[in-house]
C-alpha cells in the first residue's frame, strides 16, 4: 500500500469510506463510543490494579527492605531479649528488630516504623527511598535519637500531615494519644515508597505504641548455613519464616483479586468486541452493493479487505486513544476503591497513590485497536471472499446464512463443550477458568441465530392467524435479516447476561455472608479487645460482666494469629463449642465430636483450598509450648479475610497457649434485659481499661459487616454499571444501524400506503421482539455465567464457595434492560421515518 500507484489507488476508496462514515454519523459515533468505553474500562482497571500491586510491593519493601527472613512470634510478638541473645549468643549481626503499627496524625493515616539505627547499619537493609548509609540519614538518625518521643519522616509525608520540623503533635495509636515531636525530615529518593511512613527509634516506637519489652519481628539477612543453626536455637513459640514465601502468599491473594477485576473489564471488552464486530459487519453489509460495484469495476479482494481493515484500524486507534485518556481519569478513582479493598481484606497499604504505568496505556491502545481489527476481520474476509455478483445480491447472502444456521449452532455447541471440558479439573488455574467462561459465552452466541429462528417459527405456528400483517412483516424482517438481527441479539444477550451473572454472583455472595453471620454471630452483645491479638479480657472483667451486669450467660472467645505448617493462620476457640459459632461446610458428626474433644481441628474454606487440605490431612500449629499437630476433621465457611482460620477446642487452646486471655466475650442477655443499657455499661467499664475496646450488639456487627461487604463490592458495581454502559451504547448502535439499513424498505412501505405511525409501530415491534428474545436468551447464559463465577472463578481466586441464590429482581432487571435498550434503539429510526418523505427515502441509498 506504500507505492505511489497504490496510494493513488486507495485515495478514492479511502475517501469513499471516510464519506460513508461521515454520512452515517450515528453509527460512526456509537461504534467509536463502544470501543472507547471498552478500552476505558480495561485501562482504568488495569491501572488501578497495577497501581495497587505496585503499592503493595512498595509497602512491603518500605517496611521490610531487602531482608530474607524474619523471626516472628504470632500475636504476642517477639521478646526484646531474643534479639539480644541472637546477637550475643549466635553473633548474627545481620539482624535488626522491627516494630510497626498504624497511627493517625490529625486526619492522616500513617505507619509508624520502629528502627534500631545501629542494627540497621550492620543489617544494611535497603528500603526504597531511604539511603540508610548516607551521611544525611545518619545525621538525621542521630538527631532523632537524641530527643525523647522524636520521629522523622519524608518531606512529602510531613507536608501531607501538615507538620514542620520541631513541631510537637499528637500521635494516635491503638493504645491512645501520645505526644511526639517531628525531629527531622529527609529528602526521599523515591517519595511514593516513603509516603505515609514515620520512623522512630525502636525504643521510642515501643513507648509510643505501649509495647515495651516486645517487638513485632526480628528481621534478618541470612546465609543458607545460618538457617538451621538459628532454627535450632530459637525459643519455643517463635518461628523463622522466609520473607519471600510469606509475601508471595499475600501477593497471590491480592493478585487474584486483581485478576477478578481485570476479568470483569475484559468481559466488558468482550461485549465491546462483539458490538464492534456487529457494527463493522453491519457497515459492511450495508455497503455490500457498493462493494459489489467496486469489485465489478476492478477493485480486488485484497483491496476490499484492506479498505475495511484500514477503516477499522483508524477507528480503533482513535477510539482507543480517547479510551486511554478516559481510562486515566477513571483509574484514579478506581485505585482508591482497589487499595481500600486490599486494605480491608489483606494488608495495610502505606502507599495509596495512583502510580502511572506507561505499559498499561500501551496495552490498552493495542487491546482496543486489536479487538477492533479482529472484529473487522471476519466481515472483511467475507466481503473479500464473496463473488462481486453475490455481493450485489443481499438475498443471496441472507439465504446462505439461513442455511448455515444449523452448522453455526453445531460450532457453538462444540465451543461450549470445549469450555465445559476446561472446567472439569477441580484444581484448574484461574486463567483456564476465564478461558472456559469466554468459550461458553462465545459458543452460546453462535447458538442464538438458530434459537431466534426457531423461536419465531414457533411464534408464527402458535399465533399466525392472530397477527396483523404489519406484525407479521416486522417478525419476518427479523427472520430474513438473521445475519444482522442475530448478531445484534447476540450482543445484547451477552451484555445483559453479564449483569445477570455478576448480579447473581454478588447477590449470592451477600446472601451467603448474611447466612454465615446469622450462623456465627451467637449471643446478643460482643465485647472485644480490638488492638491486641494476644487476648485481654481479664478475670476481673469477666467477674464484672457476670456479677454486675447479670447477663444470662457468657461465652469466652480466644482468637490469635499463630504460625503454622501452612503459614500464618488465625486460631480461634469458642467456650460454647464450635457448632454454635461456625457455619460448617463439611464435617461428619464424628469429625465434629473429635474437634470438640480436642483430637482434631476444623479449617476455614479458604485455608483448606489454598493449602490443598482435605479431611484427615494434618496441620501443625506452633505455640510457646511446642508444636501441636492435629488432623483436619472438617471445613467451615469463613469470609473474614483471605488469610485463613483454624478452630480448635477451647480446652486445647488453653492448654497450648496457657498465658492467653480471651479476646472477646459473647454476652447472652437475660430475658427482658435492655441491650442498650448493657452496651452503655460495658463501654463505661472498658473506657478505664488500657487498649482499644469494641462493644457492639450483634445486630450492629451484622450491619457493619454488610457495609464493609458492600464497600468491597462497590468496585464490582461500578464495573458492572460500566459494562452495562458499554453494552447499551453498542447495542444501541447495532440496532440503529440495523433499522437505518432498512430505511429504503420503510420508504417503500410508506409509498405503498402505510402511515408514519404504522411504520414506526412496525419498527417498535421489531426492536421490542429482539429485546425480549435477547432478554430471554440472557437468562440461561447469565445463570451459566453465575455458576462459573461462583463455583470456579471465586473458588479459584479466594477459596470461597457460596450458595446459589437466584434473586428474581436480577432476572426482572435483565429483561427490562434488554427491552429498554431495544426499545430506545427503535426511537431514532422511527423519527427518521417520520422525517423523510417516501420519495426521498426511495432515492437515498
Amino acid at each position, binding site marked *: 500500500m506504500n507505492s505511489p500507484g497504490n496510494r493513488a489507488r486507495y485515495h478514492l476508496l479511502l475517501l469513499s469510506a471516510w464519506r460513508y462514515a461521515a454520512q452515517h454519523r450515528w453509527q460512526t459515533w456509537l461504534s467509536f463510543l463502544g470501543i472507547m468505553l471498552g478500552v476505558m474500562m480495561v485501562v482504568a482497571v488495569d491501572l488501578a490494579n497495577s497501581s495497587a500491586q505496585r503499592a503493595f510491593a512498595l509497602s512491603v519493601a518500605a517496611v521490610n527492605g531487602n531482608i530474607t527472613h524474619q523471626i516472628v512470634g504470632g500475636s504476642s510478638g517477639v521478646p526484646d531479649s531474643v534479639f539480644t541473645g541472637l546477637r550475643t549468643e549466635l553473633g548474627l549481626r545481620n539482624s535488626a528488630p522491627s516494630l510497626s503499627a498504624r497511627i493517625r496524625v490529625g486526619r492522616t493515616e500513617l505507619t509508624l516504623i520502629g528502627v534500631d539505627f545501629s542494627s540497621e547499619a550492620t543489617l544494611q537493609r535497603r528500603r526504597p527511598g531511604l539511603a540508610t548509609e548516607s551521611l544525611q540519614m545518619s545525621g538525621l538518625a542521630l538527631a532523632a535519637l537524641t530527643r525523647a518521643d522524636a520521629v522523622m519522616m519524608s518531606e512529602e509525608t510531613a507536608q501531607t500531615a501538615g507538620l514542620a520540623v520541631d513541631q510537637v503533635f499528637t500521635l494516635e495509636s491503638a493504645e491512645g494519644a501520645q505526644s511526639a515531636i517531628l525531629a527531622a525530615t529527609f529528602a526521599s529518593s523515591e517519595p511514593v515508597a516513603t509516603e505515609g511512613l514515620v520512623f522512630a527509634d525502636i525504643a521510642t516506637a515501643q513507648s509510643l505504641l505501649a509495647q515495651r519489652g516486645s517487638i513485632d519481628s526480628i528481621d534478618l539477612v541470612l546465609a543458607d548455613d545460618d538457617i538451621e543453626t538459628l532454627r535450632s536455637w530459637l525459643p519455643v513459640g517463635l518461628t523463622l519464616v522466609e520473607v519471600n514465601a510469606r509475601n508471595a502468599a499475600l501477593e497471590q491473594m491480592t493478585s487474584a483479586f486483581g485478576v477478578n477485576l481485570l476479568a470483569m473489564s475484559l468481559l466488558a471488552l468482550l461485549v465491546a468486541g462483539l458490538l464492534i464486530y456487529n457494527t463493522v459487519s453491519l457497515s459492511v453489509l450495508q455497503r455490500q452493493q*457498493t462493494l459489489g*460495484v467496486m469489485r465489478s469495476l476492478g*477493485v480486488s479482494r485484497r483491496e476490499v479487505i484492506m479498505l475495511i481493515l484500514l477503516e477499522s484500524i483508524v477507528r480503533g486507534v482513535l477510539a482507543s486513544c480517547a479510551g486511554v485518556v478516559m481510562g486515566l481519569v477513571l483509574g484514579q478513582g478506581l485505585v482508591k476503591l482497589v487499595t481500600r479493598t486490599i486494605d480491608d481484606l489483606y494488608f495495610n497499604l502505606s502507599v495509596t497513590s495512583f502510580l502511572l504505568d506507561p505499559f498499561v496505556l500501551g496495552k490498552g491502545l493495542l487491546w482496543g485497536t486489536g479487538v477492533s481489527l479482529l472484529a473487522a476481520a471476519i466481515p472483511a474476509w467475507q466481503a473479500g471472499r464473496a463473488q462481486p455478483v453475490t455481493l450485489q445480491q443481499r438475498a443471496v447472502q441472507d439465504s446462505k446464512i439461513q442455511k448455515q444456521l444449523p452448522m453455526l449452532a453445531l460450532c457453538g455447541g462444540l465451543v461450549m463443550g470445549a469450555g465445559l471440558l476446561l472446567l472439569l479439573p477441580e484444581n484448574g488455574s484461574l486463567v483456564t477458568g476465564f478461558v472456559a467462561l469466554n468459550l461458553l459465552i462465545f459458543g452460546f452466541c453462535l447458538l442464538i441465530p438458530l434459537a431466534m429462528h426457531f423461536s419465531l417459527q414457533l411464534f408464527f405456528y402458535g399465533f399466525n392467524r392472530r397477527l396483523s400483517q404489519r406484525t407479521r412483516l416486522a417478525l419476518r424482517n427479523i427472520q430474513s435479516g438473521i445475519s444482522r438481527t442475530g448478531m445484534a441479539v447476540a450482543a445484547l444477550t451477552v451484555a445483559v447476561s453479564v449483569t445477570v451473572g455478576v448480579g447473581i454472583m454478588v447477590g449470592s455472595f451477600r446472601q451467603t455472608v448474611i447466612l454465615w453471620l446469622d450462623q456465627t454471630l451467637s449471643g446478643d452483645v460482643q465485647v472485644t479487645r480490638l488492638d491486641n491479638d494476644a487476648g485481654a479480657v481479664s478475670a476481673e472483667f469477666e467477674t464484672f460482666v457476670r456479677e454486675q451486669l447479670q447477663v444470662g450467660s457468657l461465652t469466652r472467645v480466644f482468637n490469635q494469629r499463630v504460625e503454622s505448617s501452612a503459614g500464618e493462620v488465625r486460631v480461634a476457640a469458642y467456650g460454647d463449642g464450635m457448632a454454635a459459632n461456625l457455619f460448617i461446610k463439611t464435617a461428619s458428626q464424628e469429625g465434629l465430636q473429635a474437634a470438640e474433644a480436642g483430637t482434631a481441628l476444623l479449617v476455614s474454606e479458604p485455608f483448606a483450598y489454598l493449602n490443598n487440605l482435605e479431611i484427615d490431612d494434618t496441620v501443625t500449629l506452633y505455640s510457646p509450648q511446642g508444636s501441636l499437630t492435629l488432623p483436619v476433621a472438617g471445613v467451615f465457611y469463613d469470609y473474614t479475610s483471605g488469610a485463613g482460620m483454624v478452630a480448635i477446642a477451647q480446652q486445647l487452646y488453653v492448654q497450648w497457649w496457657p498465658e492467653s486471655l480471651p479476646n472477646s466475650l459473647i454476652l447472652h442477655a437475660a430475658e427482658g434485659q435492655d441491650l442498650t443499657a448493657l452496651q452503655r455499661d460495658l463501654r463505661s467499664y472498658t473506657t478505664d481499661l488500657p487498649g482499644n475496646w469494641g462493644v457492639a450488639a450483634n445486630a450492629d456487627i451484622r450491619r457493619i459487616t454488610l457495609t464493609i461487604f458492600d464497600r468491597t463490592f462497590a468496585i464490582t458495581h461500578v464495573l458492572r454499571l460500566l459494562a452495562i454502559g458499554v453494552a447499551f451504547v453498542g447495542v444501541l448502535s447495532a440496532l440503529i444501524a440495523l433499522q437505518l439499513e432498512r430505511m429504503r424498505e420503510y420508504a417503500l412501505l410508506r409509498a405503498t400506503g402505510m402511515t408514519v405511525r404504522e411504520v414506526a409501530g412496525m419498527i417498535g415491534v421489531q426492536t421490542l421482539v429482539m429485546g425480549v428474545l435477547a432478554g430471554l436468551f440472557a437468562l440461561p447464559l447469565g445463570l451459566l455465567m453465575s455458576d462459573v463465577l461462583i463455583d470456579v472463578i471465586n473458588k479459584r481466586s479466594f477459596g470461597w464457595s457460596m450458595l446459589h441464590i437466584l434473586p428474581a429482581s436480577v432476572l426482572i432487571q435483565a429483561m427490562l434492560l434488554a427491552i429498554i435498550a431495544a426499545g430506545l434503539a427503535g426511537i431514532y429510526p422511527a423519527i427518521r421515518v417520520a422525517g423523510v418523505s417516501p420519495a426521498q427515502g426511495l432515492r437515498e441509498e
Partner: protein
Amino acid sequence: MFIQTENLCRKFTHGNGEQVVLAGLSFTLRRGEIVALLGRSGSGKSTLLNLISGIDRADSGKVFVGGRELTAMNELERTMFRRLNIGFIYQFFNLIPSLTAAENIALILELNGRSAEGAMKSTQQLLQEMNLQEQGSHFPSQLSGGEQQRIALARAMIHSPKLVLADEPTGNLDAETGAQMLELLISHVRENNSTLLLVTHSLAVARAADRILTLDHGVIEERSGEFAW
C-alpha cells in the same frame, strides 16, 4: 474473435430446487462490434454478462475475451483483467453513493494506477465533453436518473476499455432520455473502437446494434431482419 464462449453452463440452487439458466451456451463477438442481446426476464442475459465480465464463475464451459481465457484465471487475475479491459453500465446506475460524480469516474483510473491529479484531469475533460461539468461535484443522490446513467457511462468509458457491457442501460430512463443515452453510448463505443454487448428487452434499443442475438431458455440465436418479440 474478440469474445468467445464454449458450452457455458450456469445453474442456481433455490431451496431444494435447481434452476439451469445457461446450458452449454456458445457464441462469438468480433472486435469493435455492437451487439444487442435480447431476452425475456429470467432468460439469463445478466448471468451471461456477469460470466463474460468475470464477476461470476461458470459451472462449466469457457469464456475467452481478447484471446485470454477468463475461466482459467484466478479471482485476482479476473479482477485485474476487468479493471483494465472492461467497462460496465447497469440498469440501476450503481454509482458509489459516497463519492461525487467526478470521483466515481476517476476511481477506475486510480485503480489502474493513475495519480489522483491525473485521474481527475482526465475525468474533468470527459465531463466537459459530455456536458456534465456542473454535475461533477454532485453526489449520486443529487442527480436525476438520466444524469446518473450518463455519469455511469462516463465511468465505463474513461479508461477506454476494449469491452463495454451494458445491462439494460436505458431500462430505468424515459424514452427521450433513453434514446439520448443510447446515442451517447454508441458514439463513445465507436469512437473508442470498443466492443459493446448490450443487454436489453427492448427491440427498439436492440435495433441500434450491428447484430442482434436472442437468448431464450439457455439457447442463443442470431436474428436478422424483422422478427417479433
